[in-house]
């Protein structure tokens, strides 16, 4: 026979102070955990290895990122002869010549807090090479016009990048571009960028060479052949699969995500001990009571179950409070500086159902582990002795 839940419920209120302390520990833990997890998830999403396996990115040898690469027109001419390049609907080869540069934009209106945002000059072929780029609002920029489209994350994070907004670009920051569209790629670096017509961007920034070329092949299996041609002596450029490039870029940042995970793990273990401590004390102080329960016929299993339930009761309620606290942070927009490109990547702290469920799961786990040892001990109490003890 199981002990009534009411017994546990009343018990929690008998030791108000110690219950509320356990409660506070678990609630704080859940709150921190949620924020850390959403922080890690946000960063991970902004680094999502976008790219396509059949896309090959071409850089100058020695350059670590697009922003520090320069490809001259005759080098570009040789790139065209790479094998296996796909053709678009209009019959043109799917080679996207891209110019990567940057500009500073205030994070909020009127603030002096500036962020270095990546600006990419592209031609119409870019949309064929990067089919994941989808306009979700407005339209594409017209070539030859001072118009740009912006990634969704950039629009949400930085000042005045909504449709109809204006942004100063160019080497002197004196060309006024109009935002005519917002695009989304489903996570990844592009979402934090500003895209404009390549000739316009090239002119405004006084940059005459492209930074990189992205080739879309008919088949991902042909990538190896194309890469060996491009890296070979005739072209002598450095090419990689697009997926590989983005993976390399996010290496350092992934270390941070790993560090966050370690912090979460240590905190959780610490909290498990805190909960175990409270439960242990709660059980230890109740030996006589437990002996009484045994005397009137409750089995060992029932007593273990009862203590675990009691602990779970505290942990789950605390978890709900912690989650409610974490929801305040949900939707906060942040950005961080990528140390490969020195431009910022914007991300959103979002408490997703996975994160919420994960924290709930952890709170339960901490509750069960914390209670099981003292519960086992409690069930082993020698009835006669415990009853006799004053």
């Amino acid at each position: 026979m199981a002990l009534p839940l009411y017994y546990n419920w009343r018990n929690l209120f008998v030791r108000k102070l110690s219950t509320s302390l356990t409660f506070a520990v678990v609630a704080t833990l859940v709150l921190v955990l949620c924020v850390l997890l959403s922080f890690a998830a946000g960063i991970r999403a902004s680094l999502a290895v976008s790219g396509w396996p059949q896309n090959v990115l071409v850089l100058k040898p020695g350059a670590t990122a697009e922003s520090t690469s320069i490809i001259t027109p005759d080098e570009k001419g040789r790139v065209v002869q790479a094998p296996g390049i796909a053709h678009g609907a209009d019959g043109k080869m799917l080679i996207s010549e891209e110019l990567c540069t940057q500009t500073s934009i205030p994070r909020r209106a009127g603030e002096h807090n500036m962020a270095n945002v990546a600006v990419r000059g592209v031609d119409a072929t870019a949309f064929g090479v990067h089919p994941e780029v989808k306009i979700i609002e407005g339209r594409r920029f017209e070539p030859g016009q001072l118009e740009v489209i912006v990634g969704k994350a950039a629009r949400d994070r930085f000042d005045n990048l909504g449709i109809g907004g204006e942004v100063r670009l160019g080497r002197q920051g004196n060309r006024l571009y109009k935002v005519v569209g917002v695009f989304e790629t489903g996570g990844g670096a592009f979402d934090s960028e500003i895209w404009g017509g390549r000739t316009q961007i090239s002119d405004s920034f006084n940059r005459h060479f492209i930074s990189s070329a992205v080739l879309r092949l008919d088949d991902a299996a042909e990538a190896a052949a194309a890469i060996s041609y491009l890296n070979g002596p005739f072209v002598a450029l450095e090419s990689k699969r697009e997926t590989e490039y983005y993976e390399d870029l996010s290496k350092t940042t992934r270390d941070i995500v790993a560090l966050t995970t370690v912090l979460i793990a240590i905190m959780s273990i610490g909290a498990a001990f805190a909960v175990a401590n409270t439960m242990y004390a709660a059980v230890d102080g109740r030996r006589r009571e437990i002996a009484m329960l045994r005397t009137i016929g409750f089995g060992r299993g029932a007593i273990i179950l009862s203590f675990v339930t009691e602990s779970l009761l505290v942990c789950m309620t605390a978890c709900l409070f912690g989650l409610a606290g974490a929801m305040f942070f949900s939707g906060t927009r942040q950005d961080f500086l990528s140390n490969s490109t020195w431009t910022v990547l914007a991300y959103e702290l979002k408490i997703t159902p996975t994160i919420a469920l994960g924290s709930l799961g952890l709170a339960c786990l901490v509750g069960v582990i914390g209670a099981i040892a003292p519960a086992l001990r409690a069930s082993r109490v020698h009835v006669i002795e415990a009853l006799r003890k004053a």
Partner: protein
Amino acid sequence: MTIAYVMMQNLRRNRTRTALTIIAFALPMAIFVAAISLVVALIEINAISARELRLGVHHKTTLVNPLPEGTRRKIEALDPGGKRLTAVCGMRWFGGKIPNESGTIQSLAADADTFPRVYSDAELTPAEIEAWNRDRAAAVVGAGVAETYGSKYSGWKPGGRVVLKSTVPPYLELEFHIVKVMQAKGQANVFYFRRDYLTESFKTAGIDSPDCNIFWVKCNDAASLAALQREIDQTFANSPNETKSEDENTFRAGFTQALGNLPGLMRAMAIVVVVIIALVAGNTMMMSFRERTRELAVFKAIGFQSWRIFFVVLTESLLLALLGALIGIVPTTLFLLSFPIRRMGYLPISALTVSPWAVVISVVIALIVGFAAGLWPAYQALRLKTVDALRRVG
């Protein structure tokens, strides 16, 4: 039987609980000491930078846009008498890396003549300055860089030769002669060499580009720094190369954003840790007091003064806190000392070294928590009505 013996026995009485409390204390303290180390290190670096009174002047739009070399003379012309500024040092980003290694080293080409004066925190001795002036390929390197690569490659020590390949156009590969390993905290991850060497090498490669990314203006006092900051930006306003001047700390803060505001996260983490350990310690002390009420009453009954009982309860709490803190702090400190994080990369995380301050702060925080946790039970013990407590069953 001494009081100390009683206290030791008290801790030993319920070993499981003592162990649980200590571990619940130690783990968060381990995080705390690391978090506070980072915060302390950043504060120290900021304080050093503020003392150095350097003003960074770069292109208004982005650091990537170079400024012409002549900017230096225009800045110097603002203070011909040298009353407000000591020297101006132009720098150009080289972004070198060791061929076939992945990490980019913060390497910059600096004006040879003014570098030793503008970077007095590099602490070049007269002999080293002479070597720097004599050898065009001379370079000074931060202790962090020297340590990271020194274990793998030879040459990363004074007198050694190293080769770096630039990651920015035209991707030159140059050989440098190291004249000094800088010990200054704020300069752990940098590599400076002479700009005339870079310009000359550019020329050999057929490029004439003597531009700089940033000019560091060493000022004589804080007031001059503030005034020059305004004047310099005014001087270049409405020119093709508008500037933005900021002091070294503000400049660096822009980069601290890298890695998703880690210092902010660490600060928040430190606060949460304190809250958690306070709750754990408070809980334990309440429990242990409650179950010992009768015993304390007996002590009183046989003649121990109230303040002594107060002292015993409080000290027990302090002892627990101290033990927990030490078990958390010592391994973390040893770990951070034997595996310096600065090998991992660049600011701000590379600043994470254990400073004595961080350890002191951690121990003090632990003691404060232990004190606060023991205060209420100890106060109750002080007030304890002997007769009532003795009569109570439970």
